[in-house]
């Protein structure tokens, strides 16, 4: 596992600390780390404060992890994703940074900290 992705496993809450520029080659290790973290503990915190940029494939992994967590009744959070760097990556990918996907049943999206550049109430018909 690269030093850009560091897994700290513990019984109650595991942490995945991300840093640097995460590219397509980091998607597979990231998936492994998150699978391990979700298997180890009911709560998983992803620390993205040190991320300089994050590629689409890695964002997809984070989304998938969130999906798995929701399905498996686990708690997954991304911390520090409101840094300008992280927000820029999300915006570039066109991710809906403030509303989340349909798996987002608890009302808080993975990207909630992201910059809400297109915020608007859900449509009038």
């Amino acid at each position, binding site marked *: 596992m690269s030093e850009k992705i560091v897994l700290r496993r513990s019984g109650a809450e595991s942490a995945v600390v991300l840093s640097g520029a995460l590219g*397509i080659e980091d*998607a*597979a290790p*990231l*998936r492994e780390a*998150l*699978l391990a973290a*979700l298997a180890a503990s009911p709560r998983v915190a992803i620390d993205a404060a040190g991320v300089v940029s994050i590629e*689409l*494939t890695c964002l*997809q*992994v984070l*989304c*998938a*992890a969130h*999906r*798995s967590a929701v*399905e498996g009744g686990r708690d997954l959070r991304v911390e520090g994703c409101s840094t300008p760097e992280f927000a*820029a990556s999300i*915006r*570039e*990918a*066109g*991710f*809906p940074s403030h*509303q*989340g*996907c*349909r798996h*987002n049943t608890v009302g808080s999206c993975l990207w909630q900290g992201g910059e809400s*550049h*297109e915020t*608007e*109430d*859900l*449509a*009038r*018909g």
Partner: protein
Amino acid sequence: MADERLEKHAKVYVEEARELLAELEESLLELEECPDDMEVVGRVFRAMHTIKGSGAMFGFEEIAAFTHDVETVFDLVRNSKVEVGKGLIDLTLRAVDYIGRLLLAHGGDGFVEEEEGDEIRAGFRALIPREAAVVASATEPAEIAPPGGGGMAGERAPRIALTYRIRFRPRRDIYLTGVAPLRLIEELGGLGLCWHVARLDEIPALDDLDPEGCYTYWDIILVSERDLNAVRDVFVFVEDTSEVTIEIVDEGSMYVEDLDYKRIGEILVERGDVEREEILRLIDERRPIGEILVERGLIERAAVESALLEQRRIKEARKERHEHATAASVRVPADKLDKLVDLVGELVTVQARLTQLALTKLDGDILGVAEMVERLVAELHDTTMGVRMVPIGSMFGSFRRLVRDLADELGKQVRLVTRGAGTELDKNVIDRLHDPLLHLIRNAIDHGIEAPDTRHAVGKPGEGTVTLSASHAGADVLIEIADDGAGIDLEAVRLHAVEKGLLARDARPSPEETRGLLFLPGFSTARRVTGVSGRGVGMDVVKKGIEALRGSIDIESKTGQGTSVTLRLPLTLAIVDGLLVRVGDDAFIFPLSEVLECIELTRGMIEAAHGRNILNVRGEVLPFVMLRDQFALEGARPPIEQVVIVSVHGQRMGFAVDVVVGSYQTVIKTLGKVFRAARGVSGATILGDGSVALILDVERLCRMAEAEEGRNVMAG
């Protein structure tokens, strides 16, 4: 033919560019005061962009090339990569001047020194930071300004922007083919304004995820002037394997009846995100359809967000176009407008004849029609006059630059405050007002405002203020140029007048009379010649200019507190309120503004004066002129004549006429070349019966009478 058309376009371009330059100058001065105002920066950028873009289109290559570097720098300013400072403002103002000269030179008027252009360009290039040169060329879709702020229409007006709805669903293994999907979206951004929403509903749970597969697909809204093929070309390498649908959802037509756009449900159905039946089933619930769909898990939020985006962008674009269309103005050459005013003037006189005819014929039908025509003509007349009215603020702007440059040159600190910029005046008046105002402002800065040290010494702030204000006063407009400088040194004025031989050495004029000396030809207190003032133009020229506009000028001054010059001008030059009189068969018009009163002239009064043309009006002696003699008119004098008393420069004078008919609103016609030499007549007008009445130049007549009197005295 094509050349002719191009030439016509070139003319329009020159005119437009001039206006843009004036606007630019104003924006730059504004920017100097608030360097952080990004809106102003945007304005400067857009103006430069338009000058450059249209310049290239209409064959002004040298302007396009020159403006390019300026535009680049302001683009950097816009992106906070270059800061606004005095240096940049100075340089840009120089560039504005240079572009102005290029425009002139293009029309074969004047010339430019290319070295100067190169120097300015080098100045701008030096401002471009090394790494910024790279950054500036890369497009970043997310950073492109949204419509409204960026002003697509303003920047590239001639073309029509289309709105595309694009769904891009890359094949799962697109990364293996070496194509990064986001780069394609970035490429789309290069075609125009682009917004994209990622759709994530196909991303599986972590166990099923191929970390290098692409599960995301995008809904994209692109606003671009490029055609469908250009958009397709972006996807040319992936269209066989990836799903790409491109639809035009807004044609960019200028005249959309309906500003509204499709409802969210409709957009979602069109996109295939949801079934129509589903929508119809849910629609009666009184809540936004998007909310319901998301809540029921029928659709992901991103789908609604994306549909919303499309709806909003198109509504915005339509609204903007609509505003653009409704706020659109038509450029009309001034001479066409003059012709129109002229024709309406003719119509007014013909209408008056019609009314007169109807009255004499006593025909009810004709009278009815005549009245209707009268009403319509009056309305037409008002409207036409209104068209010629221009806010004076358009001229105020150009003085800002003058104040700045002159203050710099003289080492003074001066602020120009303008008030009443919306005050409207006839375009002809505004055009002819420019030079007198220019001179008065120069005077205020050169002679009025003191140097900062002097000001500090007398407890004033170092920065002086010149206030330029305009307001309506009845049918007149008042324009005031006031400064908070030292005021007029009356003793210095007196001594100077004596020195120039304009005043007797022992004369002790009143303050008012002393200020009047300033208007004498040959009076100029400028002891030294500065670059901008001291061109041998004195206040006498200003006064002449104002009087030629049928206006008056008045000076007030308080020692140590400043000077204020007030100009009173008529709203329009095309019409004058007159007093219609007759001498024999001929009709004349006195400008009503110069008439004080009319009195009767009886045989007895003439005898009392012993044949001299002098009247006793309430104990005051008043000289008068027989208009009949003045114009050598035939016919016998009636037993009782009328004397029209006028006031010129505070001096009263009478003119004896046969009959005073009454006040008459006169449309002024200039005299033809043949009559230009006629003295004592300033113009003519056509009366209701079709006959011509001459408009009297009262001032000239008075001067002629005085000269005559002088000759008589010498001879006698």
